[in-house]
């Protein structure tokens, strides 16, 4: 575990930024706005369609793009843990009494539990939808430079939301590194063991309190360092965002057409 990555199943922002800055593939040269538009289209598609075949194709295409951009696929599978847990813990429970052809059934404390083919289909569909969006989000993050994200944040959000967001984005890296180092220090003096829940809880509380206090002080000092180098209070980004090229407009239109087509094919629309 490096100082910065706290957990294998949570995306490591440092690594993400590293790939984003390295810019190894043609996807990095696309305008961030194109990727943003595609993010919205993909969300729309996933929200509109429950067709397993369409979803599977979409997933494979995005995964292919991810791999083609030389991004770490094995890491990605580790990062799927959280979304998968989220989906399973919600739908995993509901999937049990879905109508359909029973596959497994047994009783717990008098309650009959039946898992049907529809139930399983439900879980698979929702999981696939989640993974599609997660994969594309990470692909977006890992092929777009930090400064372009900063510029987008600056354009999209009203003040003071943009200021908070930009500063938070910046402090995040410091805070993550600090949290990692503190946890390292705790472990290096025997703090990683499970004692009692109370002792363990207290220790984490202390560490978290420290993270809060430290990052506040850090932010004060970083703020100072920024002022010391001419930061004027309102932080704008000097960088422009690469504009959309003609081909990219076409690409977006094609994508939109696909979404519309899928929407028309889907029998039930709306709530």
């Amino acid at each position, binding site marked *: 575990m490096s100082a910065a990555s*706290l957990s294998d199943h949570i995306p490591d922002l440092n690594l993400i930024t590293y790939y984003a800055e390295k810019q190894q593939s043609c996807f990095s040269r696309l305008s961030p706005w194109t990727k943003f538009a595609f993010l919205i289209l993909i969300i729309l598609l996933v929200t509109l369609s429950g067709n397993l075949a369409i979803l599977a194709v979409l997933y494979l295409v995005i995964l292919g793009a991810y791999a083609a951009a030389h991004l770490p696929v094995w890491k990605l599978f580790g990062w799927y843990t959280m979304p998968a847990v*989220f989906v399973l813990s919600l739908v995993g429970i509901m999937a049990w009494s879905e109508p359909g052809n029973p596959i497994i059934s047994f009783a717990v404390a008098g309650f009959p539990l039946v898992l049907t083919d529809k139930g399983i289909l439900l879980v698979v569909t929702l999981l696939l939808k989640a993974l599609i969006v997660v994969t594309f*989000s990470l692909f977006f993050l890992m092929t777009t430079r930090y400064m372009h994200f900063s510029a987008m944040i600056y354009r999209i959000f009203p003040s003071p939301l943009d200021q908070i967001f930009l500063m938070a984005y910046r402090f995040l890296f410091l805070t993550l590194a600090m949290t990692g180092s503190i946890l390292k220090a705790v472990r290096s003096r025997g703090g990683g063991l499970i004692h009692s829940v109370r002792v*363990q*809880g207290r220790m984490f509380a202390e560490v978290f309190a420290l993270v809060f206090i430290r990052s506040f002080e850090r932010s004060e000092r970083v703020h100072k360092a920024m002022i010391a180098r001419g930061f004027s209070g309102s932080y704008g980004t000097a960088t422009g965002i690469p504009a959309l090229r003609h081909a990219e407009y076409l690409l977006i239109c094609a994508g939109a057409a696909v979404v519309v087509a899928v929407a028309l094919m889907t029998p039930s629309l709306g709530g």
Partner: protein
Amino acid sequence: MAHIHLEDGSFTLFWVAVWWVIALVVIAAALIWVRSVKKTDNRKITLAAFCTAAAFAIFQVSIPLFGGVHLNLTPLIGILTGPALGSLIVLIINILSAAIGHGGWGLVGGNLLVNVTEVLVAYGTWNVLKRLFPGAFARAGIATLLGLFCGNLAMIAIILVSGVQGVTQSSSQILAGLTLIAGVNMGVAVIEAFITGMIITAIIKARPDLLEGERP
């Protein structure tokens, strides 16, 4: 996991839009409050930014209890920064979370409403209890528990109202499932309440200026 983040594709387009619109109204109100009613200074902005970063970083730490617990600390944010800034902070946290797959983009609206409930209730409880409880630890703990409880209610309500795409069971069946989840959540909430109490105590001790007028 103290929260169930809903992933993309769970809700229909209609409900995605509904929760987004409500969330945007809440954010607009918070922005107006921060900008004009309560003239927020630069320092507060820095505070909000650090809170965002710290909360997001802490969320990434897996606590080795019950096979790994992650804390969101939204009630703590409510206590530290109040409802208006708190709402802005949870918006950013939800966006950052969506970016790394913890909750869907389309559901930022719904998830935001759950978190704002936590922020509001925790902040309110913390201040209402001020006269009753002199000790910050118990007060913060209770505020957190109550905040998380209401957050859970909000989550159940949102899911019940919108329904999950593809789920065909009756509302009461869904409610049974959700109650189970909420029960587990409340177990984790007790840990979060304890830890929040400790954090508040430590902050008051080390940086009394962050929570003015409080004693440990």
